[in-house]
């Protein structure tokens, strides 16, 4: 598959700065951060009913722009997948939340916040999901080393 699916073509035409590409033979839309939710909405309107996955990657030392958010969309009707990718700079790690478009983004965005420290604007409950509430740092960042964090124990408030 080296040609763009017409469905994706219609989305690319709607927006300035959205580009289509292939990555390992899979459809990818490169989205500017400011258009993140609008493109997702357009995708949903075009027939991508389901958001199957949303995550992030830390490209520390690899790229100029440090983070990238990745959303995998699936259209059951057209049997088509597309991956949205948006670059997120380190000094402005706020992205529009996809929860208003796909309610299923809820847990995923909480996980991305927990693991990478990327905040999602418009998310109903931006709290840690996997790590303890009082955890410091965001473990999946590349500058968060393995094995250097002392295990956190909570002391008993008084002798029993």
């Amino acid at each position, binding site marked *: 598959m080296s040609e763009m699916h017409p469905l994706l073509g219609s989305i690319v035409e709607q927006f300035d700065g959205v580009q289509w590409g292939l*990555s*390992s*033979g*899979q459809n990818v839309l490169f989205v500017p951060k400011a258009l993140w939710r609008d493109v997702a909405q357009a995708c949903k309107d075009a027939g991508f*009913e*389901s*958001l*199957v*996955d949303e*995550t992030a*990657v*830390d*490209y520390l030392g*690899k790229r100029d722009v440090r983070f990238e958010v*990745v959303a*995998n969309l*699936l259209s*059951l*009707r057209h*049997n088509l*997948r597309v*991956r949205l990718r948006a670059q997120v700079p380190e000094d402005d790690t706020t992205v529009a939340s996809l929860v208003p478009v*796909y*309610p*299923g983004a*809820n*847990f*995923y965005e909480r996980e991305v916040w927990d*693991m990478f420290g990327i905040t999602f604007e418009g998310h109903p409950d931006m709290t*840690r*999901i*996997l*790590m*303890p509430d009082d955890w410091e740092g965001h*473990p*999946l960042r590349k500058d968060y080393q*393995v094995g250097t964090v002392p295990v956190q124990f909570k002391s008993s408030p008084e002798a029993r």
Partner: protein
Amino acid sequence: MSERTFHDVWVSGTEEPEWLLEATDEGAQKMQPEEPEERLLEQEGARVVDDYVVEEESPEDELMIINMGPQHPSTHGVLRLQLELEGEIIRRSKPIIGYLHTGMEKTGEQLTFMQGPTNVTRMDYLAPMHNELAFSLAVEQLLEIEIPPRAQAIRILMTELNRVSSHLVFLATAGMDIGALSMMLYGFRERESILAFFEKTTGLRMNHNYIRPGGVAADLPDGWEDDVEGIVEKVNRGVLDYEDLLKQNPIWLERTQGVGVVTAEESLAYGITGPNLRASGVNWDLRKAQPYSGIDQYEFDVPVGQHGDVYDRYRIRVQEILQSLRIVRQVADRMPKGDYRTEDRKVSPPPRARIDQSMEALIHHFKIYTGGVKVPEGEVYVAIESPRGELGAYLVSDGGTHPWRMHMRTPSFCNLQALPVAMADSLVADTVATISSLDPVLGDVDR
């Protein structure tokens, strides 16, 4: 009380029932006939049948928040639920997860691509084969290597057997949660024969590290045909027992029909996949839609439910066991001969005996086990149909021997989000039935 009948899910390949012909794009969902108003009121506690008199209500005792878990026996692990109750009715609920988080995605970045399956196999501990397969397929797509037909057939054989064993645990635990204790014993009895076969083949009952990038770790043991035939017969016979126990059991029907309903639209919006999506009437199975490892050459049907309730989710699993056994039988009949892993020496190590004879083999062996396999730069998302839904592996490689980022899209994590939807405005007593019907595995949720 209105007439309640048991209904069955539709299995593709058979004649389409009327309700499916009216299907829309969103699916063939149809609501359960509601119980008569009086009975509902009785259940909710609004209508009182004995001589107890409701006194004046005060605002304090309207809402109550209850914590269920993380150590509740029927939460299938360490899941905690906050339930906001109004009398006997759940108004809002919130699943709280993370108690089993072990940082496997971070660990995955420290392990080489060849060590990866050891790590991911521990995520969904009821379907380890599927985890390994998703990870291996992603690595292979980055490496752009061909997998020999025998390796592919073995992969399908093992994953489908694994699906059967996983669904057997579903039946066992769901039965136990709702009070059908004998179902628990039967389910685990049949599952044991599959685990014994896994142990014979891979050396371990769980966490096999059997499916690896490039193929599988070892060939099937001698006499595997008889073992597989025995399993197929035993489980087929077992399913007849389960049908006798549950299918028309009035208590079971009463506890499951119309309980924990998730509609097709809600399922799609929340990204639910797998049997839970099909129970809502959406005919979507990755094995049919986006086949992997040559599963399209085997004949099987996709069961589709109608009501999206607990009963349909249970029916789907029973039918899927039978369909998976069909696939297993076909694979066993047509098992191709040849290599069980690729002969590309840059990816799979040479046999031990070759190392004594060939310098090249020694070098390849040394390079693979000390440095690892270099995987070309790129990123890929590969999804397969696990017993719980779409299991995806998102891998980013920077051209080195370790993944730059390894993310697993685990189905339970996503399916669990729909729990508040399924439980909204239902009775507290149905909580347990709803949780077990969504079949979350907490290792899969927290990773």
